[in-house]
């Protein structure tokens, strides 16, 4: 029996394959396609203390090998989320990681406290890297002192282990990773989207109402792999790697770069079966090369 299970901050996942926040709702929308019980974890769309409207449309646009999005973290607020989305997830035997967003440290803390006693929540992923909201959010993710501070304050209050989700829009991902670790983060996840822009030259307008959007999909994979590698060499806490993962080979690439787990994002839109397929393809790889424990592949390329 080959072992695909991994552990992060004491939480055990049946396999290293998660959904990337914001690309999978709370799982409901993809449950026609994927057996959620087969996934390592469902990572939910970012949730704030109060409902957020998000940005005006168009919010998404396609680019070569990927897409730009500027959803702007639309969400129904933590109350509705807890009562509806978490209750939906009660039915499933998979880990649940809740992605948390906010405009101020207090916003984040409110969500973290509200979810503290929710048994269904295994971990919290703190999104300090969304490029699509004007206040807060990414500012925390682009300055190492701000990141240290918010991480520390959330860690003090959080009852579940916390994952800091880092922005790739920085000069040094290692520094950011170190700041998160130093402040007590239990894990880090990366990368969030890279800020991009598309102009419709015929209409002479931005393709997105928000002007800029976050780039995701296969186009960003090499950047993501590099950052996971750099972060893995900078810190000792576990890393959840993502950015353009489409299949098992991509997932293995992230694991070899140093990730403990991986997440599938934009490629769910191309292939709604992607997450489950990644699980299966990781198993095939292990079969083919007789790998008995997925953990033995982590960071083996140095």
């Amino acid at each position, binding site marked *: 029996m080959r072992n695909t299970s991994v552990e992060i901050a004491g939480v055990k996942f049946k396999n290293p394959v998660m959904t990337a926040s914001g690309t*999978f709702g709370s799982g409901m929308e*993809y449950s026609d396609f994927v057996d959620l019980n087969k996934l390592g974890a469902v990572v939910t769309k970012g949730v704030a203390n109060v409902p957020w409207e998000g940005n005006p449309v168009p919010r*998404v646009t396609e680019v*070569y090998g990927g897409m730009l999005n500027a959803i702007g973290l*639309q969400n129904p607020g933590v109350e509705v989320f807890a009562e509806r989305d978490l209750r939906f997830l009660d039915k499933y035997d998979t880990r649940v990681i809740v992605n948390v967003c906010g405009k101020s440290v207090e916003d984040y803390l409110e969500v973290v406290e509200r979810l503290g006693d929710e048994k269904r929540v295994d971990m919290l992923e703190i999104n300090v890297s969304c490029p699509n909201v004007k206040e807060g959010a990414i500012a925390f993710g682009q300055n190492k002192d701000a990141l240290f501070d918010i991480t520390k304050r959330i860690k003090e209050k959080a009852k579940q282990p916390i994952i800091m989700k880092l922005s790739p829009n920085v000069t040094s991902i290692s520094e950011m990773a170190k700041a998160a670790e130093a402040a007590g983060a239990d894990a880090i996840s990366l990368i969030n989207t890279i800020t991009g822009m598309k102009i419709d030259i015929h209409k002479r307008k931005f393709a997105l109402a928000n002007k800029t959007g976050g780039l995701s999909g296969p186009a960003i994979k090499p950047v993501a792999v590099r950052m996971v590698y750099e972060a893995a060499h900078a810190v000792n806490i576990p890393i959840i790697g993502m950015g353009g993962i489409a299949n098992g080979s991509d997932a293995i690439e992230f694991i070899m770069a140093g990730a403990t787990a991986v997440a599938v994002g934009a490629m769910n*839109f191309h292939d*709604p079966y992607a997450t489950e397929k990644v699980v299966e393809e990781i198993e095939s790889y292990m079969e083919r090369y007789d790998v008995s424990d997925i953990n033995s592949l982590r960071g083996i390329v140095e």
Partner: protein
Amino acid sequence: MAKKQKLQAKVLSQRILAEGIYDMWLETPLAKDVCPGQFVGVFPTNKSTLLPRPISICEVNEERTAIRLVYRVVGSGTAEFTFYQPGDYIMILGILGNGFPVKEAAGKKAVVMGGGIGVPPLLETAKSLSSLEEKAATVSAVMGYRNKETFLSDEFEKCSNLYIATEDGSIGTKGNVIDAMNEMNIDCDVIFACGPMPMLKAIKTYAAAKGIKAYISLEERMACGVGACLGCVCKTKNVDDHSHVKNARICTDGPVFDADDIDI
């Protein structure tokens, strides 16, 4: 509701309907459960483009084994679709969206109103209206075109009373679909509409003024097509169940909305 799937569909036929407008039949088990006004996502094979193209279902064959897509070439995806030949396979995602509540027209005077590339989904709608268990009292179709290059109008004639409006006046009423409604004095209890935003706005205003129920189908840029990404929202009048922020998802909560419920 039928389970959504991504699966191969076999191209049965493809032809040009009008300049830049193509007509393709696809064999697919998804046909079984289609409601008029629903759509599919069609995936280009070109790997630089990864997102599905939302295309409405124009018609379902009698055996419900195939769907018909009528599409306009506007970019790389639709351009690729034109190359498909009978026997080719393409990947589609469906069935997506809610569709028109055609049953609400039972016994009523129903009008389908379409413009531009909003015309195709109304064909299946018009056909359904006249074949419901409890049929609509009358089914009229009011279609707006730019000029006499109309398409699908012969088929609307078979299942509805057809009225045409053209921008240049070359056929039917000169003007838009509302001009045709007024000029032709078309009786109407309920409207099913799809087309460009200015047309939909005019219909919403017209329906509100006349106290007529109007269901309109909206369009927006989409990524997932299944309600997960929150890319494709429209403003709603009231807090909706899903978003709690007056933002309904066109791909899942729509594309068809009661005109009274949305803010356009």
